[in-house]
């Protein structure tokens, strides 16, 4: 009885560890795909919710009505993104992003969530510049 309960708890722990390892090593559970990978998978991805990661190409960010469009690049492939869910306040050209949504038949990525990927570099602002603090937007 007591041993049984300990066995259950241990099984849960072991299960959690296996799950983590499976997430890390299993190819389907990669956190985001690059534009090249999405292009290579092509139509098999249509209709599947995926994450796309890369850099926002400078000069490509445009606002069209409620949508924001931009191009995400991994330095090999460029992929157009149409985002309908708004962007965080730190979103800007040249920044790393992870976008969530669907790869469309039109060859564009239709996103509803944009996550800004911050680099591991931290620097003080240039002399005389007051950085506009990042603030919570939306819910």
């Amino acid at each position, binding site marked *: 009885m*007591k041993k049984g*309960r*300990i066995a259950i*708890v*241990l099984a*849960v*722990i072991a299960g*959690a*560890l296996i*799950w*983590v*390892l499976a*997430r*890390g090593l299993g190819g389907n559970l*990669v*956190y*985001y795909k690059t534009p090249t990978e999405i292009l290579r998978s092509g139509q098999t991805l249509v209709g599947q919710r995926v994450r796309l*990661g890369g850099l926002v190409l400078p000069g490509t960010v445009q606002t069209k009505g409620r949508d924001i469009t931009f191009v995400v690049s991994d330095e090999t492939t460029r992929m157009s993104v149409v985002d309908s869910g708004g*962007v*965080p*306040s*730190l*979103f800007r050209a040249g920044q790393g992003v*992870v976008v969530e949504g669907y790869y469309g038949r039109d060859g564009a990525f239709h996103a509803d*969530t*944009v*996550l*800004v*990927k*911050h*680099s*591991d*570099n*931290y*620097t*003080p*602002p*240039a002399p005389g*510049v007051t*950085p*506009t*603090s*990042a*603030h*919570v*937007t939306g819910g």
Partner: protein
Amino acid sequence: MSTAERMMGRLTARRGEKVLGLLAAAGVIATAVLGLWVTPPDADEGNVFRIIYVHVPSAWLAYLSFFIVFAASVAYLATKRIRWDRLAAASAEVGVLFIGLTLVLGSIWAKPTWGIWWTWDPRLTTTAVLFLIYVGYLAVRRLPDSPAKRARWSAAIGIVAFVDVPIVHLSVTWWRSQHQAPALLHVAPRMAASMAAGLLVGVAAFTLLYAYLVTFRLRVGRLEDRAISEALSPRLEPRSAPVEPPPTPPAPKEVSARG
């Protein structure tokens, strides 16, 4: 040991504890002053960046706690001395508190910078698993069993569970993630010198805080064990035939279930 001697022992123990507590408080205040006023804001993130001065030290404290759980568990299995089991228990409690704090602080930092409160990236997922594993560890410790058995089972889990700590730490280098890599752990830290200094002071302060909290929890653990053994044994004394002399406290092996 006479009662007076025991009282003296307890008083000296508490003096060291007080010194640790004062040092930890001074360190935390120094971290707050450095983090909030002395260091500059980040060029990109502005003042939100300052949460790093508690987020990173919290994570460090949790790693340290779980390493001590691991080491104390090995020591218990090697020596079978209950004090190692008490140390593992105390350290795990502090670790769970601070890994939970790390998750909450990280989430508060993520919303204004990444744009979301939570995402299932490898770093966040493995950290959540780490939290759950050690909550499980504390749950196992509360199962009714003999102290020796409980200590043995806990030690086994305390050793195996530590596997997740390096996985958490290296997740950002092994796999693609939302979470950034450590900025401080480079030959030339990827942050301004004053920021790196503030972060190091934070790490030192939280290390002192860990030592204080574990010392405090160990004393409470010893008192708990003594209270239980004293509550269980003296009732038998007035009866006629003395089967065996009353156990000298602390005799934790005599203890059965704990509340």
